[in-house]
């Protein structure tokens, strides 16, 4: 039989061990808490059935819900594709862990959030599964950027191919142009033509010339689109350049009831970039604004031009109160050849060219539009 002494000693030892474990546990818990509070990733834990039992601060940012709002819900409720999520969960349970890339979740505000997700089984001391822990990294912005890059790349590629074709077409087009010009001169000199025939022939040759001109506008714009000129950077004032662009489109403004409001920043916005390229962008956007207003037929047209300096960039907002862009067209307007104008009126190149130019200048183009109310295009360009 052991002495009281030795028992006491044992007890003391156990107590000591216990308290050191307690400290360790406390530290580990603090460590975990720290991770859950500070990570930008969505870290969640579920019970055996997939019901949420823990939800990190990062998760609140990623999905827009607070911990209280998600507590007790099944995690797949927040997935855009619950069925795939269940398969994913089952996969993870079976293998112990699983990973899915670009998995779609639903944000509280309705939009989709893409996450790279890894799930792993949570087990007890006996190795039995008691739940799942998931870590999800929000890659929505990255994915958007990537999609944008792919789109711009594809745009440039289409542009190059189209420009090659445009070049080939320019030669026969030039022949048509010369032949029709020659016919026109023959008709002018012909003495024995009846007045009716003369009129018919003159009209016909004018048509040929007009249609050739139409083709030429397209091929020349296309060649301009892929013209890979290095930007010629000089110092200039953005507000001054905008005034120049407004002057350029003023013939179109003269006969339309459109008021141009300049809301320029009070400080001078001196920047170093390619003024010719920037002017082309502004003229394009202003022309679009004028067309949108004319199409609406309102006699209270207004174009507002606002310039703001934001850190190392300049933002130029061009707002019109025209027709706006129809919902279904909003993701297409920047596409090459996309136009809502009737045949012969638009080439569908203007905005693509703007976007291409701004890409060259390390800037960007975005817009907001409400059908029937108007559109704002925003140009961003670095100051130097």
């Amino acid at each position, binding site marked *: 039989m052991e002495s009281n002494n030795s028992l006491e000693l044992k007890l003391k030892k156990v107590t000591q061990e216990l308290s050191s474990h307690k400290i360790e546990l406390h530290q580990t818990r603090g460590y975990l808490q720290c991770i859950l509070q500070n990570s930008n990733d969505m870290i969640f834990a579920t019970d055996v059935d997939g019901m949420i039992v823990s939800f990190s601060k990062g998760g609140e940012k990623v999905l827009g819900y607070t911990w209280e709002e998600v507590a007790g819900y099944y995690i797949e409720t927040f997935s855009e594709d619950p069925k795939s999520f269940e398969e994913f969960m089952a996969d993870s349970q079976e293998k112990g862990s699983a990973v899915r890339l670009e998995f779609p979740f639903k944000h509280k505000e309705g939009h989709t959030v893409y996450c790279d997700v890894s799930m792993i089984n949570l087990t007890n001391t006996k190795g039995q599964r008691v739940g799942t822990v998931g870590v999800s990294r929000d890659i929505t912005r990255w994915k958007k950027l990537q999609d944008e890059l792919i789109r711009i790349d594809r745009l440039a590629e289409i542009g190059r191919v189209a420009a090659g074709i445009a070049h080939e077409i320019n*030669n026969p087009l*030039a*022949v048509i142009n*010369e032949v029709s010009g020659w016919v026109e001169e023959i008709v002018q000199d012909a003495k024995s033509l009846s007045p009716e025939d003369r009129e018919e022939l003159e009209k016909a040759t004018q048509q040929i010339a007009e249609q050739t001109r139409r083709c030429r506008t397209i091929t020349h714009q296309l060649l301009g689109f892929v013209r890979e000129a290095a930007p010629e950077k000089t110092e200039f004032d953005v507000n001054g350049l905008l005034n120049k662009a407004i002057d350029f489109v003023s013939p179109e403004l003269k006969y339309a009831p459109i008021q141009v409001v300049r809301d320029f920043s009070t400080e001078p916005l001196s920047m170093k970039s390619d003024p010719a390229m920037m002017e082309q962008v502004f003229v394009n956007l202003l022309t679009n604004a004028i067309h949108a207003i004319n199409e609406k037929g309102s006699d209270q047209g207004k174009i507002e031009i606002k310039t703001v300096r934001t850190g190392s960039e300049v933002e130029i907002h061009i707002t019109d109160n025209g027709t706006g862009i129809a919902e279904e067209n909003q993701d297409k307007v920047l596409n090459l050849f996309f136009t809502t104008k009737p045949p012969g009126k638009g080439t569908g190149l203007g905005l693509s060219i703007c976007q291409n130019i701004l890409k060259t200048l390390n800037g960007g183009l975005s817009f907001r539009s409400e059908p029937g109310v108007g559109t704002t295009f925003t140009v961003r360009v670095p100051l130097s």
Partner: protein
Amino acid sequence: MNDDPSIRVLLIDDEETLLEYMSKRLLKKGFTVKCAFSGQEALEAAQKEHFDVAVVDLKMPGMDGVETQKRLHKIQPFLQCIVLTGHGSIDSALESGQQDAFHYLLKPVEYDTLVTSIHEAYEKKVQLVNEKFDEDVEEIHRSGLGAKGIKKAIDKLREKYGIQ
């Protein structure tokens, strides 16, 4: 616009149909026109007679437009070249600029633009010739050559400036 003397234009392009109709129209306007369907043909023509303005395509089989201009300038240093091309490449535009292309026009060109361009190129040529010719004549006078020498030098000048 029947200017006297008639402006001598050399058209260089491998598109024969284009040159056929372009030359007809220019002839009707009173220009003196010669067609060459390749760079080589253009050089041969330039060796035989003088031109004021050349309208050159850039992309041609064999000798391209840039090379053609370069060699034409060696034969007739005052000849003004107008590039007329279906190609919108700025690189070639810059390069032909180095070869002193007077204008760079994209096909298909508005006829009036072409005609104006030819007239302007001609003005430029006349201006250049006048400046240089006076200089050269003065040079001969200063050289102190005898009558025979002067006659020979003048013949050379005729050759250089295409004076018949």
